[in-house]
């Protein structure tokens, strides 16, 4: 008798505990109307929102901004889904699409964009591979290609190179290394043959003898929309006005970023001021005179007004689905809300 009740109590307890865990994840994060949290990575490409905050563009929109730093793009998407942050800016990844399918996040604008006139992402090979004859991306068949994780933008780029170069995607040995530093180490030591990366990192690598540049991503992917701006579906449906204000503030930050680092049409003093703002979050562990050139080096264009290249996003979605890295049922409508910015 006693044991039976005890057993039922135990299972009830377990069920309650499970409910609590699930419930906790469901509870929306409490937020005041105008306080927003923006997820950033310590990369130059994330400076527009830093500049917008520094120059008071968000204040103009009556937004109280808090930055939350992340080590990788993937957790940022998850943090949006969990309600820990409101806005983020990263490459389209399998995780982002999966969360969109679950109705948690939505792409609302475009950011980093490959354009022919600006230096873009580079295709690199190790010295050993180069010596073995891999002197152009067409010769990558049968070689290993470093990625952070399966379904990352690196994975997409690798397959797009294969498609354009005319060999089978399976002939590239995709090698997950989890983190960018690990990919760099593996490339330098010749444990992987190839990789693709933004110009400032590529530039630093090719200065050394271990890594050789063999091509540009823009030759293989047309108008590649590298990163996008995204927020939670809840914001898109219930808080449209907040999203609009955020994008307005961000757009002014983007304009300053392009003027300072990409088009270089800004005065030196203004550039220095902006570099100072960015330095608080990017290369913060180095002194400003060292960090400054690094921040400016190889900055890629960010679409003004957060314009979004829908064609590129659609191509990426199709690729994810063809590789079974995203659920088949996801549509562009699930993934993107094109009503906030200019889409083309």
């Amino acid at each position, binding site marked *: 008798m006693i044991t039976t009740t005890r*057993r039922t109590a135990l299972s009830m307890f377990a069920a309650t505990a*499970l*409910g609590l865990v*699930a419930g906790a994840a469901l509870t929306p994060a409490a937020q005041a109307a105008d306080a927003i949290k923006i997820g950033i990575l310590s990369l130059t490409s994330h400076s527009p929102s830093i500049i917008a905050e520094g120059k008071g563009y968000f204040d103009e929109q009556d937004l109280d901004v808090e930055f939350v730093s992340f080590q990788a793009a993937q957790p940022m*998407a998850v943090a949006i889904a969990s309600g820990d942050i409101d806005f983020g800016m990263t490459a389209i990844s399998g995780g982002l699409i999966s969360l969109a399918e679950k109705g948690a996040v939505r792409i609302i604008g475009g950011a980093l964009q490959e354009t022919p006139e600006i230096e873009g992402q580079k295709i690199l090979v190790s010295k050993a591979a180069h010596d073995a004859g891999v002197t152009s991306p067409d010769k990558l068949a049968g070689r290993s290609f470093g990625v952070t994780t399966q*379904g990352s933008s690196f994975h997409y780029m690798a397959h797009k190179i294969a498609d354009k170069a005319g060999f089978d995607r399976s002939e590239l040995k995709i090698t997950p290394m*989890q983190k960018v530093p690990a990919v760099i180490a*593996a490339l330098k030591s010749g444990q992987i043959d190839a990789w693709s990366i933004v110009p400032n990192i590529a530039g630093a690598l090719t200065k050394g003898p271990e890594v050789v540049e063999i091509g540009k991503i823009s030759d293989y992917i047309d108008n590649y929309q590298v990163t996008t701006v995204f927020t939670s579906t809840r914001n898109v449906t219930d808080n449209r006005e907040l999203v609009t204000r955020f994008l307005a503030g961000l757009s002014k930050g983007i304009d300053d970023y392009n003027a300072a680092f990409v088009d270089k049409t800004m005065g030196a003093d203004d550039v220095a001021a902006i570099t100072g703002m960015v330095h608080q979050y990017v290369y913060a562990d180095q002194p400003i005179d060292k960090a400054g050139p690094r921040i400016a080096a190889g900055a890629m264009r960010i679409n003004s007004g957060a314009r979004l290249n829908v064609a590129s996003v659609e191509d990426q979605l199709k690729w994810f689905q063809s590789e079974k890295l995203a659920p088949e049922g996801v549509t562009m409508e699930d993934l993107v809300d094109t009503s906030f910015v200019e889409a083309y």
Partner: protein
Amino acid sequence: MSLDAADLEQPRRATADLQQNRHVAAVKPVPFRGGGFVHTRHRFVALFLFVVLVILWEIGSQTGFISNIALPAPSEAAGAMADLFETGMIWKHLSASLYRLVIGWSVGSLIGVTVGLAVALFSIVRAGVSPFVSALFPIPKIALLPLFIIWFGIGEGSKVATILFGVFFPTVIATYGGVDNVDRNLIRMGQSFGLSWLSIVRKIIIPGALPAILSGFRISASIAIILLVAAEMIGAEFGIGAYILMAGALFATDQLIAGVAMLSVLGLTVGWLISRAERWLLRWRA
């Protein structure tokens, strides 16, 4: 004679007195206080609880009480598992992981037992090696992964090495702890019968340490499975750990749960195998 008869009467009269006393003070049984604190086997309770939890979970997911971001429905996870079987990928993942586990665990255990015996039997080795074991054991082997990659490459080498190192240290400690606890009297007995050193080690010390070594195996096998995910972080195309990491990166939580379930099943299987080995090797125990 009459005296004997009177003696026999004595107890009978005593009970009769008791019967009579009943009217004065009620007779009741001594209260039983010895119950509880005994393990009785309930074979199907765990299974039943598991099924109930899964059903509750499914209901919670279906009704939307548990959001599918927080946790996928069990049926979705089962679907992901079914996909694995349908595409045959499960065998690719399993064989890749089993290869790493089997090689890493057996080589790690073999070296671990050998070093453990050496530490236990030779005081010079103990003095030299045991501080290193104590110092290196608590280091998370994951922290050494970058070094393993430089030393052993991103191929199978670093993966096997991660598991091997994780298994090695607890095995050393279990082995020499086991040897230390072998009944000294048995060793003295062996010496008193003039048994050779090797015979004493083979026939007295190793079997005596075997229970401790086997419980060490139980722990080291779990550690090996835990380290599998870490080992497959780097450069693994296939493997249960790689599958779980990919599912995490894609936020494919159904696949994540399916992968974790595979690890659980692997753990249960290994535990069951070790229990069988224990039952056979230690059949001399009660």
